[in-house]
């Protein structure tokens, strides 16, 4: 190897700000969200964890670099960058295309893999492809796996909470499995694909200097974003409904702790 360090490519899409209320709407090209273009967006939350973890690893291993590959409408990507660009250093690779929950992960993955392949100088022997294990839109957990598959990456991990480089260059990876436990695996080295859960890092504080440095590459990346056709070929949505949200809440204000405890015990014991 002539150079050291990792090439860490983080895939991260857009998600509506979780505090917004959402409503489905049937459009001419299939389902969408009502007023989708007006909704404020954030970087998909689990993908943001992947990005913070990537920056953290890159900061510790000299020669490493982080790219953020993101698919969405240009204006929305730009809006998302306003918050994300101040967090950690990265180079943006933007793809113009549809990015809602009702597109198919296979089509999204094809566009992402294509964009990753076209990053100049990417070295497969140093490549880590990271992202969120599930999106906040489709929540399928399929996109990253298919990006890895298209790039020929056999070693894939999902629900990752820890990724440690060991002294011999191998990786020790913790993945979420059933029952609140972690599966522990050792992988000999890159290329590796990891879909992150929360990891262990807090959200970095905004740093205007990092923001300025990132913005130098962000604006050109947005301008030259290639357009990808992303839809849901072969899928037919029969209906999309909002669940019955409202329960008739009984608000109990004047019972003593003992009386409440009696009620709760009675309730817990009901079959």
């Amino acid at each position, binding site marked *: 190897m002539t150079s050291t360090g990792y090439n860490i490519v983080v895939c991260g899409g857009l998600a509506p700000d979780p505090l917004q209320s959402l409503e489905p709407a049937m459009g001419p090209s299939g389902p969408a969200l009502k007023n989708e273009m007006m909704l404020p967006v954030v970087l998909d939350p689990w993908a943001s964890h992947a990005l913070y973890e990537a920056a953290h690893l890159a900061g510790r291993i000299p020669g490493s670099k982080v790219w953020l590959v993101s698919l969405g409408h240009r204006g929305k990507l730009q809006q998302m960058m306003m918050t994300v660009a101040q967090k950690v250093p990265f180079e943006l690779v933007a793809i113009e295309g549809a990015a809602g929950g009702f597109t198919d992960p296979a089509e999204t993955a094809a566009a992402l893999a294509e964009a990753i392949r076209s990053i100049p100088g990417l070295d497969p022997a140093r490549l880590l492809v990271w992202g969120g294990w599930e999106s906040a839109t489709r929540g399928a957990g399929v996109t990253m796996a298919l990006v890895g598959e298209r790039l020929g990456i056999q070693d894939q991990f999902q629900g990752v909470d820890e990724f440690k480089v060991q002294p011999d260059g191998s990786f020790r990876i913790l993945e979420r499995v059933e029952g609140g436990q972690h599966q522990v695996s050792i992988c000999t080295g890159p290329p590796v694909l990891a879909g992150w859960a929360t990891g262990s890092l807090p959200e970095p504080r905004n740093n205007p200097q990092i923001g300025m440095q990132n913005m130098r590459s962000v604006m050109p990346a947005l301008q030259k974003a290639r357009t990808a056709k992303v839809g849901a070929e072969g899928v037919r949505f*029969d209906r999309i409904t909002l669940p019955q949200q409202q329960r008739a809440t009984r608000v109990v204000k004047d019972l003593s702790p003992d009386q409440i405890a009696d009620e709760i015990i009675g309730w817990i014991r009901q079959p």
Partner: protein
Amino acid sequence: MDTILLLLHTGPDGGLTRAARETVAAGQQILRDMPGASLVAGVVGGQVQPAIEQLASSGASRLLAVEGPAFGPARHATDAAAAAALIRSAQATLVLAAGTSRWSRALPAAAHRCQGCIDTHATGWAMVDGSLAITRWYYRQRMEAQLRRTPRPWLILFDPGIFPPWDGAPGPAQAQRVEVDADPNLQRTRVEGVQAPAAQAQTIRPDADLLLVAGAGWTKKQADGRAHVQEAEALLLDFLAKSRASLGSSKSLVDLSGEGEAVLSFLTHLNQVGQTGSTPRHPKGLATCCHGEEPHAVGWRFIHERRAINLDPGCGWARGKADVLYVADAFAVLAAVNARLAQAAPPAPGTPG
């Protein structure tokens, strides 16, 4: 004619897991509504004979298996290869599997290799105009869609707990082996095992009847102007030991630990329920010291009966998110609940006292 493949991985003992038995039940139900279709079972594992014998009365017309030491551990490379081989060998048009961590990791690649398509987190199914449709949720449990797909094979991963596990009688049976070359390239990853998070108690119990959610209020200043974190820890652990409930948390509470504040030592991000946490399934849920904001409450989609204890009568739970809101001090209520649980039953063996 459709061929429905039940894609199953074994448990550590080589037998069918509960999730696998749920998949068998799914296949049997769907088969009944698809005249002319046939059922095939494909099993992956280190050793599969116990599972194969359990499948003797499942109604599967063929039993296929990929077996060997390389296929024991849950590893993407070998699992994806095994699953793709079984799908091809069965010439499956529909592939049903459980949304376990193992299959969720491996089956997207298998779908791709078979030029098929995949849906995960399916929560139901129906026949519409003679074709299979599934339901699943979008935007973190905020809306539910029913959809169909035309490409085949179509892989469908059902969430756990949707079907009652099948429990048919075992009998003598043999599987047809499907050979998969587990070359060294597929074994660059070595699975070391499973570990519980570095916390003092195993607090996540997916099979529990009750989910107890702890919110950030447990660590906040109380009426006397002080926080009572140790007392909160003791109350919650005591309740969990006596009730065998599963413990969930709000994001604010688990995040506090990342910021170095005094927190409940047994909580990790794995306990977090909600938008960026889990969406557990339990018949009942009790929220304590948690505000019930939308990003938290979306994680309660599959909790049927919901109650909350909060000092604030205007908290989110009051606004149609819970069936009952007790406006009260959770410290006092939980202490009283624990006292009653202590009277009712001696502590279970092995539970911390």
